[in-house]
C-alpha cells in the first residue's frame, strides 16, 4: 500500500482529517505512516490534518490497518490535550488542498461549535457489565422450581426429563426478568454520573450491558467507585475502558 504524504502532480491531493479542536493550535506531530500532521484554522477552531493522495487507506493486512488506527487515535489524543476535540471516523479524506478544508470548516462552523459545546470538559468511557448466569441462577429462590424438583425425585426417569425441561424454561424466564431488572438498575446508577449514555450491542454471551458514556471529568472518580460496587457483587464483573475521545457522541 503506497500512501505518500508528498503529493504528486498527476494525482489528486487530499487531506486526511483526524479531528477538529476548539482552539487555534500549532500542531506538529507525526500521524499515520509518519505523515506530517498540522492544523488548518478557521476563526477559533481548527482541523488537524495531514496531506495525502485522495485515496483511502485500505489494506488486507490487518496489522497494517491496526497500526493506522492506533496512529489515528494517537494524533487525536495529542490534539485533545488542553482542547476539546471532535474525533473523526477513520479515513475521512477531503478531496483537494488546505483550502477545501478551510471551506468545510467555514460551512460547518456553527454545527461544529455546537458539538464542541456538547462535549466540552467530558470524556467517553466504555462500560461493559458481565454476569455469570450460573451463579445468579443458583441464588434464585423460586417456589415453583423447588416444588417441581421435589416432585421430580419421586418420579420415574421418563417424566423426570419433562420436569427438567420445565424447570429449565422457568429458570430461563426468571433470568430474563432478572436481566431486565439489573439492566435498568445499572443504567440508572450510571446515568447519575453520565451526561449521556449510548446503549451498545451486546457482543458476548455473558454480557448483560454495554454502554458508551459521556462523563464530565470531575465525575469519573465517583463513577469508578460505583462500578467497583457492581464489580464486587457476586456473579458480576465490570470492564471499564477509556477515556476515549467522544466518538459516540458527535
Amino acid at each position: 500500500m503506497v500512501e505518500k504524504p508528498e503529493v504528486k502532480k498527476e494525482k489528486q491531493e487530499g487531506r486526511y482529517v483526524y479531528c477538529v479542536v476548539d482552539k487555534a493550535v500549532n500542531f506538529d506531530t507525526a500521524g499515520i505512516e509518519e505523515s506530517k500532521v498540522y492544523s488548518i484554522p478557521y476563526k477559533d477552531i481548527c482541523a488537524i490534518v495531514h496531506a495525502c493522495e485522495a485515496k483511502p487507506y485500505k489494506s488486507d493486512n490487518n496489522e497494517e490497518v491496526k497500526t493506522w488506527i492506533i496512529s489515528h487515535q494517537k494524533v487525536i489524543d495529542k490534539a485533545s490535550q488542553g482542547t476539546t476535540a471532535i474525533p473523526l471516523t477513520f479515513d475521512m479524506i477531503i478531496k483537494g488542498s488546505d483550502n477545501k478544508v478551510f471551506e468545510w470548516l467555514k460551512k460547518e462552523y456553527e454545527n461544529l461549535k455546537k458539538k464542541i459545546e456538547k462535549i466540552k470538559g467530558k470524556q467517553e468511557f466504555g462500560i461493559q457489565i458481565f454476569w455469570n448466569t450460573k451463579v445468579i441462577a443458583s441464588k434464585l429462590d423460586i417456589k415453583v422450581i423447588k416444588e417441581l424438583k421435589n416432585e421430580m425425585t419421586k418420579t420415574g426417569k421418563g417424566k423426570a426429563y419433562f420436569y427438567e425441561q420445565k424447570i429449565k424454561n422457568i429458570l430461563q424466564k426468571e433470568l430474563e426478568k432478572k436481566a431486565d431488572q439489573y439492566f435498568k438498575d445499572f443504567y440508572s446508577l450510571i446515568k447519575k454520573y453520565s451526561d449521556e449514555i449510548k446503549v451498545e450491542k451486546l457482543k458476548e454471551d455473558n454480557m448483560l450491558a454495554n454502554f458508551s458514556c459521556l462523563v464530565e471529568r470531575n465525575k469519573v472518580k465517583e463513577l469508578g467507585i460505583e462500578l467497583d460496587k457492581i464489580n464486587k457483587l457476586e456473579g458480576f464483573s465490570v470492564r471499564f475502558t477509556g477515556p476515549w475521545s467522544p466518538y459516540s457522541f458527535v
Partner: protein
Amino acid sequence: MEPTRERNATLVDLLDRVLDKGLIINADIIISLAGIPLIGVNLKAAIAGIETMLEYGMMQEWDETIRAISRKEIKEKLPLLEGEKISGKMFASYFYAEGDTWRAGWLYNTNKRIFLFRDEILFETALEKIKGLVIAEDIVDKRKEIYLEIENQVVKFHAKNIFLLKDFIKGQIEKFGIILKKTDVQFLIEGQEIIHSDKMWYMAPADKAFDKTWQPGQLYLAAKDLYWYNSFDEKIMLTIPINKIMEVKIEEEKPYNANNKVLAVSYAGSSKETTFFSNSEEILEKWENLIKKAMPIAA
C-alpha cells in the same frame, strides 16, 4: 475502579469507535469512501471471528454501496450465472470424498446456488436440489458437521461455528421458499444401510442446568456407525463408529435406580468413553447382541 486503556485489552473498543463512530464528513467533499468500511469489517472480523460478525448481523449492516463493491470484486473473480446475486459468504470447508480430504474456502449463498470457492469452484449445488440438512457430531473428531442431502448424494460441511453455518445455509434455502424436509436420519448415513433401529433413551451429558438427563430418541445401527437421534431437537446427537466400540454390556443404572438396566457402550474417543442407553431389558439385550455382532473383534 480505574478505567483502562491498556492496548491489548481495549483494541476492540478502539476499533469500534474509530471505525464505526466519530464525525463523518458529508459525502460530496470527501473521496469516495464506499469501499472503506470493508477495512473495518475485515479487521473486526479477524479479531472477533467472522462468525461473531455474522452472529451480530454486522454483515447485514453493510449498506448498498458496500454490497455493490463486494459484488464488483466478486464479479471479477467468481464465475456467477446470469442474474445471480451473492447474498453472503462464510468461511467453511467441505469434505471431498473422492480425495478423502477437507477443502476449505468461502461458501457463497446466492439467489441460485450455494457454492464453495477458493480460486475455483470446489463445490456447488442449485438451491432447489437441496433436500435436507442436519447437524451431527463426529465422535472421533469431537466436532459437529453439517450434512446436506442433495438429490441422491450427501455432502459434509464444517465451519468454526457449525450452528451459524446451519443458519447460513438454511436461511438462504428457506428465503427462496424451499422447505427442507424434516430431518431424515436415513440420508445421514451416507449410503450405509441401516441394520436395526429402535426407540431408545439416551443419557445426555451434563449441560448448564443439569448434571445428566435421559432423553428420548431413536438408536440406529448402520453398517459403519451407531447413531442416536434426538427426537426433540430433531438431530443426530451421537455418532459412534462401530470400529471404535471397545465394550458393550448391560449394567444396573447407578446411582439412579439399581433395579433398572442400562446398556453401556464404551468406545475410544479422545479417551475411553462410555455412553448409556435405556429401554426394556429385552430390547437392551437385543442391542447388546447386535452391537457385539457388528464389532470387528468379539467383545
